[in-house]
């Protein structure tokens, strides 16, 4: 069994009246990547800074590599936490060369130091750039140097704070797979902060969703997507609509779209909100259909149709771009009756 890279217990931090992080509790095992995702201001960066030691928690504990770094009795300063960090702006030392930047955190001397710098340059594919100054590099290259600098001392945990948000959209997809590959090759333990759900699902072995200071759910990317444990996660990760439903005992929930199988257990008769994802629904234009198309968004490969149900609630459905229906068209639904939908207790 792998050891624990980071463990946070009941970590809480307030700034003035706002609780930036509330009772965060989680554990990350060595060699894994945890992607922390949430809307801006949800506290994910504060959580990162608490782990790095740049903020002092009001309450709670942090363990790095099994050792306590902050608790009620002690506070280990950032320089003795064995943490590597890469910021959004890369924060390369502008007065040092690429090699000097990478060597900055190394304690070894002489040839060992040079060897390590060489290894890191090879790892990031910038062997020829060692003597360049940071401003001579492209954004993507600076990004990789920042990564190499943080990895060079072989930290117990690597923290990445929105590392791709300064890159252009197309560069971003390329760089993030490069980075993921580098991280996997070095078997680093990583906490990665992003506000982009696609990025979180792509990068994370585990994904943690944060909202208003709370760590709402930590799970595998698949489970986060398929089994969100509250409506916020459902809407934030992927697209979701909710319709009213009533549990009718026999593993099914009764809705205006028909009886659907559901995941989990509720007492019979419970009112619930049923999560419907666009890819779950297929629509057919039929004159007597109960749904009516009220909006159509062209997404290149697909159309995303917004359909009003008899109750007035709306759901969205994906169709191939060849299936072009006019607004006002009546439709019926074709659902996969074996698929289990997710229900949340109704309000």
């Amino acid at each position, binding site marked *: 069994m792998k050891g624990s890279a980071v463990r946070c217990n009941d970590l809480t931090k307030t700034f003035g009246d706002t609780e930036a992080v509330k009772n965060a509790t989680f554990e990350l095992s060595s060699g894994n990547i945890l992607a922390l995702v949430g809307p801006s201001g949800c506290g994910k960066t504060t959580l990162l800074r608490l782990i790095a*030691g*740049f903020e*002092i*928690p*009001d309450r709670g504990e942090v363990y790095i590599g099994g050792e306590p770094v902050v608790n009620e009795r002690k506070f280990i300063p950032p320089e003795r936490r064995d943490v590597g960090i890469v910021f*959004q702006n890369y924060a390369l*030392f*502008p007065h040092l060369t690429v090699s000097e930047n990478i060597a900055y955190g190394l304690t070894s001397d002489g040839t060992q130091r040079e060897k390590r710098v060489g290894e890191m340059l090879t790892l990031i594919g910038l062997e020829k750039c060692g003597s360049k100054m940071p401003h001579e590099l492209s954004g993507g290259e600076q990004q990789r140097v920042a990564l190499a600098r943080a990895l060079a*001392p072989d930290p117990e945990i690597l923290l990445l704070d929105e590392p791709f948000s300064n890159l252009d959209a197309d560069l971003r997809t390329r760089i993030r797979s490069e980075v993921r590959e580098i991280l996997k090759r070095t078997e680093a333990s990583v906490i990665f902060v992003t506000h982009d759900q696609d990025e979180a699902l792509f990068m994370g072995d585990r994904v943690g969703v944060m909202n208003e200071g709370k760590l709402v759910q930590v799970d595998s990317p698949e489970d986060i997507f398929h089994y969100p444990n509250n409506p916020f996660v459902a809407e934030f990760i992927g697209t979701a609509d909710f319709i009213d439903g009533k549990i009718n005992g026999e593993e099914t929930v009764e809705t205006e779209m028909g009886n659907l199988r559901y995941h989990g257990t509720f007492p019979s008769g419970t009112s619930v909100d049923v999560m419907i994802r666009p890819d779950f629904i297929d629509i057919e234009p039929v004159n007597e259909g109960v749904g009516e198309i009220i909006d159509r968004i062209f997404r290149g490969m697909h159309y995303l149709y917004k359909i009003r149900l008899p109750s007035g609630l709306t759901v969205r459905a994906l169709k191939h771009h060849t299936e072009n229906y006019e607004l006002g068209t009546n439709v019926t639904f074709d659902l996969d009756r074996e698929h289990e939908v997710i229900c949340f207790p109704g309000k």
Partner: protein
Amino acid sequence: MKLEKSAIREKLGRVPLPVWILGLAVVVAFTIPIVYLVVRALEAGMETWELVFRMRTLETMGRTLALVVAAPLLSLAIALPLAILTTRTNLPFRKTWSVLTVLPLVLPSYLYAFVLISSFRSDGLLGFLSSFDIYGFPGALLCVTAVSYPYLLLPMRASLKGMDFSLEEASKSLGHGHLSTFRKVTLPLLRPAIASGSLLIALYALRDFGAISLMGYETFTWIIYSNYQMPFGGRMVAAGLSLILLLVALSLLFMETKTRSKAKYHSSSEGSSAPDLIELGRWRWPAFLFCGLIVSAFLIFPMVVLGYWVVRGISAGQSLQMYWGAAFNSLFASGLTALAVVLAAIPIALLTTRFSGKLSKLIEKSTYIGFALPGVVIALALVIVFVGTPLYQTIFVLIFGYMILFLPLAIGSIRTSLLQINPTVEEVSRSLGKSAGETIGSITLPLSKYGILAGGTLVFLVTMKELQATLLLGPRNFETLATSIWHTTSEAFFARAAIAALPLVLLSSVPMMILLIFWHRRGNHERISGSM
């Protein structure tokens, strides 16, 4: 969880303990003399206060305020056209003019007074125009304006350059022409720069001693100085008068800080494309002539007069070597001061930029003392503190006085470059195993080296020119170039004054060049205080 000791240490730890101790020591050392002056002045007896509050004081206040109001107005009349011509028009040799029109800043006011007196006195260079009386208000006004109008020119030009040009384009697209756009959009946006620059000039006029003393225009700094030299309690009267001057200076400074925060809000460095240059058409050459006239009056004329007296002095057998001693004293005192001020300023700049709290705010404010107080007040305070001690009238007290006066200049310059460093750069260094102290040494200071150098250079430059504190605090018979020029001019030895002024101008122009290069690198002008 209560904040444990280790956590408190971390909170303060971004600024290590030695920095705290140094910074606080500097602040305490620099504040005590002024507090002491105020206490002593308030303790003074009734007879002293009767001498302070008499008719003569009121008259002096009137003369002082006349200069304080007139100097910014005349400066505005000069600087506003210059600022527009050199940033927004197709004026011939625009770049050259924009450098030349700022250079008078390097001249001390007493040097310009020397130039005027040695030209327009009946025994002077242009003595044949003897109907022209240069002494008194006109002379004082001209001197103060000549050397301080760049304080308006610099922020106005920075503001014009940094302005978001799309605002003016929007105005033009809405049917307003050049003039109407200027009046309705550009000028209102310039207002903060005008206000802040004018207040700096007002402060300069309030503090000036060199020009007003030579011109025989008795303002507050003069009566403080003359009372100080009077026996039998003159010093206490001077201290009482200092308090009044202190109040006026503080209120000007208060107004200045108010306008400064607005100026920040208004100026935007996001200026998009370059603006359309205004075609001057047939006004091109008159505009050229205007710039030529300003540069001739405030730069070329002084240099020619200086050259004339130097040549005349040498041909009459004056030795060039007679001011070696003074030149050495100036260089020595200025160099030592620049070094000492930078060393004192670094911890304070670190405290005020890296630690935000009530204490660091207080520290920052207290260092503005030198900015608010005329040299004569600070000198008087130090005299009262040190008189009777072995340090009195030694170079140490003089340099201490210089330090109080010029600390804000160095702090300002270093702060600016510290603020440009992204805090994440320092955090990365911490996470890579370097302590807060090591991080300051290996990251923070190397990255702010230009600010530190510029601060030191600026202090060197202003110390070279300093007159009042040098007269009051210098060791007996300690002559600098500044005091030599002042003494010889007041005794009408113009050739000697010129021979002392020549090295001052030459030695000042080197640091001025360095500063111009720094400011150019930074792309915006540094805020320069009124103490130059």
